[in-house]
């Protein structure tokens, strides 16, 4: 029941899930990390402890090279954005979500600022500066951009000041249309909704300067002699916020989260006898 459309530029531009179709653009962006001064106190570097972007967010690429693979159970769009950003967008016949399966890295290290990569999902939902992130994978908490419930906020860091931990889920709602979009992640990440109708989640970063908060080294993880290559998934689901037409989006999200966080285990046994002997 899930489907997505891809534009001429190779990017996803609409999705249909749980009977609801919305415009949804997805692309990868990056921030350059801030480089501090020598004392790293007044002007502190972006690093392991703090996310401090230097300048505006930029697109990794305006377009992706895309190919599609269609089976009886699975349909995939395979996107290559550049040398270090690729993604498979996948639907199958049984799930009420669309999987965005990204592979990022090795992030180049030729720029002193470092690169902090996010995946951004943009819709036309009217969200009024409000979004929801979970706390410890349990309770969804209401977040309002540039606002704290306990004090008057003067936000001097427009991006990172609106980033929150996303343990398992981030969601936005259009109360008038009664539509909710949720992104479930397969690991704890940081993210937020910096513009109405948008969700962005940071998925990989290198920070080539220590932020002087204690780790004492730059964040530039290596494996096999080069920068780390990571793979992971976001599961996007969309649905009605009311129960009127059957299962609510909350119930659907809970079902997905349970099946991802307590996924079925797969065991393999090589068969050296006949199938009948095995049985």
């Amino acid at each position: 029941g899930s489907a997505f459309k891809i534009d001429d530029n190779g990017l996803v531009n609409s999705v249909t899930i749980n009977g609801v179709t919305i415009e949804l653009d997805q692309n990868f962006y990056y921030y350059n990390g801030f480089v501090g001064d020598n004392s790293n106190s007044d002007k502190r570097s972006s690093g392991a402890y703090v996310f401090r972007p230097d300048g505006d967010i930029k697109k990794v690429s305006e377009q992706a090279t895309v190919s599609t693979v269609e089976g009886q159970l699975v349909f995939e769009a395979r996107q290559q954005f550049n040398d270090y950003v690729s993604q498979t967008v996948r639907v199958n016949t049984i799930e009420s979500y669309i999987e965005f399966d990204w592979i990022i890295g090795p992030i180049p290290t030729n720029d002193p600022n470092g690169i902090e990569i996010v995946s951004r999902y943009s819709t036309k939902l009217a969200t009024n500066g409000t979004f929801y992130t979970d706390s410890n994978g349990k309770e969804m908490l209401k977040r309002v951009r540039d606002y704290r419930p306990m004090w008057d906020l003067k936000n001097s860091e427009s991006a990172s000041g609106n980033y929150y931990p996303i343990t398992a889920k981030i969601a936005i709602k259009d109360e008038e249309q009664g539509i909710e979009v949720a992104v479930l992640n397969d690991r704890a990440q940081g993210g937020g909704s910096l513009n109405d109708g948008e969700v962005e989640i940071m998925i990989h970063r290198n920070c080539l300067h220590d932020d002087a908060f204690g780790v004492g080294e730059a964040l530039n993880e290596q494996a096999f002699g080069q920068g780390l290559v990571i793979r992971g998934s976001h599961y996007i689901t969309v649905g009605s916020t009311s129960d009127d037409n059957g299962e609510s989006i909350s119930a659907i999200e809970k079902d997905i989260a349970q099946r991802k966080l307590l996924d079925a285990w797969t065991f393999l046994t090589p068969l050296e006898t006949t199938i009948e002997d095995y049985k």
Partner: protein
Amino acid sequence: SQELNDLREVMGVLQHHDAVAGTEKQHVADDYSRQLQRALNECANITSTALNKLLSVKSSTGKSVSEKLPLNSCLLANVSQCAISENSDTFVVTIYNPLSRAVNKVVTLPVKDGNYDVLDQDGNSLTIDVLPIPSYVANIPGRASSATHDLYFVAEDVPPLGWKSFIVSSSQSNKKKSISSSKPNSDS
């Protein structure tokens, strides 16, 4: 319990805020990986023993299963690498559901190019897809695999806190079987 305690202890260590937030030094991150891998390997014996008990109880033929079935995990399946699925002509896939309700699961296994058949416990042939692995996955640094494709099938209605098994065979082993095999018993 020693094997289980090793994993408990490592999970305790990984509750440290540096491990949770990723603010540990690189060599500490490497050590976390080392400890976790070792503990998971040790626990494989426990999961295998526990699941063998379930398998034994569930045996529908009434025969007691005297031999312990090896149940292996493929921890690198996330980069489409698994020695068993890519090198065995015939193998059994056992899916254990840790939830207290039945689930459907799309099973994905790395395999070599070829024709495959997947049978459920009743001997029914399932719908499958065998799709080529994209180059950006095949070229992930450190991946050491001869798999060129991913095999997909749906494990339907895996019972709560229970299991289902499926038999995967490549076309080469199918040809061999067609000479000697008969249809599975109706009660198996």
